[in-house]
């Protein structure tokens, strides 16, 4: 296991290193360079040269990359051009809130999707299966921003039982103190994920229902409920867990939209605002953080999978 972990962490480090290179290069592909982006098209050549010199953009690329990386290693992601704060402190403030949002909406999605998928798998081709499939597909096909708007219209305007805006508290405790405000953002995030997870679960259950071990369990005298919720469940969870890790970037991009619709003070909103003000250090810092999160996410998914599937466990001993 330690061998496996060491190997996987090594791989993860390589991926992260590559990401820093890509992010760094992205910074330099901005038309006219970051100076143009910040100072605007009307800036004089002298102003741009001064800006470039101030930020070290007039040095050679490898030199700049080295500065960038050594900054990263010290936890320095640069400073925001517009918010007068360091990027790392901004991300530090925002990331727990986004984790709460995405974590809770994933949890809700799984709690709904797993039983739903199992239930559909068992009643395949029934009227209810078709009905739920239709609903799920609609949920899947609806853009998140549109879904969020519908939720707002229905639950905040037509039937005003929930607030339109997410809680604006600075701290996590403050966030939970106003938990009613969390309901709509979480719901908006969960609905799209329910679609994905329940489809996976449904097809995994269908595949497993046809397996020989199911026949063995029935031949032993196990009840249908036991066969499904014990024998099949364990084997059907593997694809879901494998997917969870790769779902992370998707969740973040969902958070981007949801946070801007509900004005939720997380990473997504930070990113959204930075994109509008061309605040490149924030954008690149966020991309880097998300990339690292994705790598960690898939690592965790692999480890979880080993816990569920003894064959994977055996292979990574």
């Amino acid at each position, binding site marked *: 296991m330690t061998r496996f972990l060491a190997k996987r962490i090594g791989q993860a480090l390589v991926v992260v290193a590559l990401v820093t290179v890509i992010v760094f290069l992205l910074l330099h592909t901005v038309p006219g360079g970051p100076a143009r982006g910040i100072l605007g098209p009307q800036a004089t050549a002298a102003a741009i040269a001064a800006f470039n010199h101030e930020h070290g953009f007039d040095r050679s690329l490898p030199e700049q990359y080295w500065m960038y990386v050594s900054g990263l290693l010290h936890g320095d992601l640069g400073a925001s051009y517009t918010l007068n704060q360091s990027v790392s402190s901004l991300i530090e403030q925002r990331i727990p809130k986004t984790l709460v949002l995405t974590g809770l909406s994933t949890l809700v999605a799984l709690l709904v999707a797993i039983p739903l998928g199992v239930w559909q798998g068992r009643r395949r081709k029934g009227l209810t299966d078709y009905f739920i499939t239709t609903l799920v597909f609609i949920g899947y096909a609806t853009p998140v921003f549109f879904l969020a708007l519908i939720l707002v219209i229905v639950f905040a305007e037509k039937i005003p039982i929930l607030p339109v805006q997410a809680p604006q508290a600075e701290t996590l405790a403050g966030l939970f103190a106003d938990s009613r405000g969390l309901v709509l953002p979480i719901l908006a995030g969960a609905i799209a994920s329910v679609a994905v997870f329940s489809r996976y679960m449904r097809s995994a259950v269908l595949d497993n229902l046809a397996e*020989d*071990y199911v026949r063995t369990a029935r*031949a*032993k005298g196990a*009840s249908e409920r036991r066969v499904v919720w014990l024998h099949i469940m*364990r084997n059907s969870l593997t694809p879901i867990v494998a997917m969870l890790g790769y779902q992370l970037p998707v969740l973040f991009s969902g958070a981007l939209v949801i946070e801007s619709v509900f004005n939720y003070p997380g990473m997504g909103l930070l990113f959204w605002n930075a994109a509008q003000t061309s605040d490149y250090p924030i954008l690149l810092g966020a991309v880097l953080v998300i990339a690292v999160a994705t790598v960690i996410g898939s690592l965790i998914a692999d480890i979880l999978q080993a816990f569920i*599937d*003894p*064959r994977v466990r*055996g292979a990574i001993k």
Partner: protein
Amino acid sequence: MTESPALAIKDLRVTFGDTVRAVDGVSVEVRPGEIVAVVGESGSGKSVTSMSTLGLLPPTAEVSGVIQVGGVDVTALDGAGLRAIRGAEVAMVFQEPMTALNPAFTVGWQVAEALRLHFADMSKKRAYERAAELLEMVGIQDAKRRLGQFPHELSGGLRQRVMIAMAIACEPKVLIADEATTALDVTVQAEILDLLRDLRAELGMAILVITHNMGVVADIADRVVVMYQGKVVEQATVEDLFARPQAEYTRRLLTSVPRLERGAHRARARTALREPGQAAAGTPALALSDLVVEFRGERGSKVRAVDEVSLTIGAGEVVGLVGESGSGKSTVGRTAIGLIKPASGSVRLLGESLTGAKGRDLRRLRRRCSIVFQDPASSLDPRMTVGDCIAEPLIINKIGDRDDRVAALLKSVRLDPSVRARYPHELSGGQRQRIGIARAIALDPELVIADEPTSALDVSVQATVLDLFLELQDRLGFACLFITHDLAVVGLVADRVAVMNSGRLVEEGPREEVLFDPREDYTRRLVASAPVPDPAAQRERRAQRLSL
């Protein structure tokens, strides 16, 4: 005859939908302590019959008739009533022990589950203790440790023993073994059959064995029920059935079964074949020397699949390569025509070195040999018509006149040229394998590698395909490496036989010598384990094997 039957199936009929009548008026009785074999080819309804005794058929099946277990009619039971019978009164062992066990739970958990489902008051600890006893009972050593292992950590034979332990956990009155030894190697099959015999003696169970293998029937059955197209065509004691088959179908079935006997060999029309010693004189079709093939195993370690194998096949000669699963025989076949690169050693194909050949040379060499795979269903492209499949090698090698050639090839494998427009899924298994053969001979090869070409087929189909293959071999005179696990088939087709065991060539020589007078212990055990379709002879062989 006085004892009441443990299992009595009366006039069972099973239909799927309105049209498919899978089982049509079947009646079978099994008395306590008796082993009854239900034998038949695929589609005969034997498995449907066995599944219906536990109510395990899918809901689309319509069942009528009576199935009595210890006097209780199973067909009249509801869910809970059925579950009380399943595992407790009637237990089943299935074909594929790898997939029949749940991969996510330990062996101990699964055996304990079988117990706890029926003894509600049994503690977990007690169930595990009993599970260990059961594993010991089915001949698994070190049972305590095995309890904590997962199915994928066990060999096929051990897994099947676990399945049997699970089946006998509640001491059922009836044990149904549905092709329980089909997926196993012959030596393991022999052990499992011994185990079933012992358990019958110990527990006095009634055992229903479902099989397509006449050798297994001869080995284990007291009585035999022959099924064909959903009907019972004959029921007799095992001695009577083999000595005096009554039904036309039974007779046909028995003649189709290849026999491992001294005289049972093809009559070769060609006299061109040289004696084995002389084969080396001309240019051999295939010469392997000190061949080593390695695969990457766990933790980067290397697993030797083929270990210093040297083998020569003369022009026009058929060499049978036999061995159990994992012995490396298929790897040898694939390496021989360059599909796998050897780690060391050399392959000489038709007098030229294949190991160093590249690009055009390699293609030119490959053109002169071909391969027939085991499963025709998966080795033909499902999106290509039969005609296109056969024509592909012609197209690749830019040979004109394809239409006529494809028609001629189809005729030579005894198929109507009109099937060229059909797709593989529209054909039967036997027809598909003939297409595979037609494709293999399309370029008039000098060497054909036949990798278990008849193993996926029913015996009667196997007989016709083998017959066809031999006729073609005779006519076209290609040399052949015939890879199979079936000793009787090898006895029928091969001039010389090579035996492999865990990557090594154990023994090699003329057919008569290797099969009937083997030098090596391993070969002796292998030959003795293959059941022959003759109860009296099989009894003798069993005694011999147990004394080995």
